[in-house]
């Protein structure tokens, strides 16, 4: 079925994204470590704080979609689990719809931030004088990616539920609640 295939592909793509940004994070840790060692020897790369901040912004925005598909965004499961398959899938769809709408709004409101940096050619107010568009572009793209993945997941979930495939939709957009953190 198309919806199942789509969700499978989205999961695979996001896994790759997650490993890549995980690698970026690791590289940043090594960079920070080297800087500490060099500081003890009296020199420094300088700007580790600034670069860590950019890495954090990019890791955060690009990791969101992976977490969505791994059911990692915490939901409080009080009423939902008491219902049958129909009720549960309604809760799931409602939650995903709220998420998709909010994330789309966020991605849309993030554009002016990048736009201003491009128009003004703004540089960070730091010794590195990083051109802000350089780091804000990947950050913004991450939020857009999150919005796109949310929409595609929503459409797939609606198709699954319409076809009565509740077990599949629950796997794709259900919840482990806070329990999922343990996995």
């Amino acid at each position, binding site marked *: 079925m198309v919806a199942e295939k789509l969700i499978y592909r989205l999961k695979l793509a996001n896994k790759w994204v997650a490993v890549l940004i995980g690698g970026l994070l690791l590289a940043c*840790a090594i960079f920070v470590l080297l800087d500490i060692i060099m500081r003890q020897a009296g020199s420094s790369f300088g700007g580790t704080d600034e670069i860590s*901040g950019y890495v954090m912004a990019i890791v955060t925005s690009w*990791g969101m979609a992976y977490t969505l598909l791994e059911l990692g965004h*915490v939901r409080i499961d009080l009423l939902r689990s008491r219902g049958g398959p129909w009720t549960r899938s309604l809760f799931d769809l409602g939650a995903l719809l709220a998420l998709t709408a909010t994330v789309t709004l*966020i991605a849309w409101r993030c554009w002016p*931030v990048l736009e201003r940096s491009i128009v003004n050619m703004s540089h960070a107010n730091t010794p590195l004088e990083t051109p802000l568009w350089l780091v804000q572009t990947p950050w913004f793209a991450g939020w857009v990616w999150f919005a796109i993945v949310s929409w595609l997941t929503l459409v797939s979930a609606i198709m699954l539920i319409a076809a009565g495939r509740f077990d599949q939709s629950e796997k794709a957009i259900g919840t482990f609640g806070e329990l999922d953190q343990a996995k």
Partner: protein
Amino acid sequence: MIVYVAAGLLALLSLSIPVGIVLFLLGFGVDIFFSPFPLIRGLGQMVWSTSNNATLIAIPFFVLLGEVLVRSGVAEKTYSALDRWVSWLPGGLVHANVATATMFSATSGSSVATAATVATVAMPQAERLGYDPKLFSGAIAAGGTLGIMIPPSINLIVYGFLTQTSIPKLFLAGLLPGLGLALGFILVVMLICAIRPDLGGERRVFPVADMLKALVNLVPIILLFTIIIGTIYKGWATPTEAAAVGVMGAFLIAICFGHVSAGMLSQSLLGTIKITSMIMLVVIGASFLNFTLASAGLGRELSAFLDGLGLSPLETIMVVVVIYIVLGFFIETLSLMVVTIPIIVPLVVQQGYDPIWFGILMIVLIEMALITPPVGLNLYVVQGARKSGPMSDVMLGTIPFVATMLLMVAALIAWPQIALFLPGAIE
């Protein structure tokens, strides 16, 4: 406004909308109904400035540290070493559960990871040596909660960020209450096993030579803790830098024990990204809600609200404690912290309390939320590591430890110095 926000919060949460999204939606609501000017224009800038943050990157670093450490094989070594040192006490191996959890807490910033690690290592022993499953598993669930109190702590980083309090000071403030709780757990187990020796299993005394030899196995964890916390207080490193050092330390340990592989690395990274994004969606949502509430005049309204209630500071704290205990049955850890910080912390600070002290008090209450049913994550983690037996075993087993935590809450209120002494001494 406070009443509307609180009611909206509960309603949206019970619809099982993701917690981070609930916070954004509430922020939009405050913007539309209570703010004189449109705040949504600031949304993009808010998201950027919250995530472009060199302090918050300590969160994924500490998560990664934990993920690597859990897969490094160090837990087994630590457990067997501590077994040799504490199993002569009434309660035997139960103390090793608490002690291992305490040591793991000192390097890991997460309670769930701590409980999961100790449970995996300890559970097979319980059945083999004939321990009471209730007390044994309860001790793991409760011991695991120390992960968010004893530094480093991811929850304290989030608290510090959202309330603008110093993270090194918060870490220092958590040390004594964390160790106090660990000691309390050990005492309560001894007390129970002195009254009912059959619950404690066999007490074993190991030869001194054995005990000394086992100490070698504790070196990696102690070293890691000293490096992380030491570099912060020596002023060599910020919490973020110390976390980066810790990540490398954890890798070093894993390499020494021969547990590093490509699969292990990618699993650790995937786990880190998942937990980090989960935390960050909630944190960014809370920042946005904080911002809208402050712009809509929460401060003024809170003063009026408090005057209307006519509660003394002590009564306010009592009410807050009760709110956390009740909410803690259903919501927990980070979600509970983050959804309440925007309203509760300004309220408490307005009554003249120290935000660092309150952060520690809140952590104790959240630790309790981790082991109180029906929603208590550590209960499920420990049950998941058990091969058999009903869930109610674990729930009943945590009761003595919940009582110990309540005592700690009372002690913190009566003697705030338990938390504030160390941060004060450092100044």
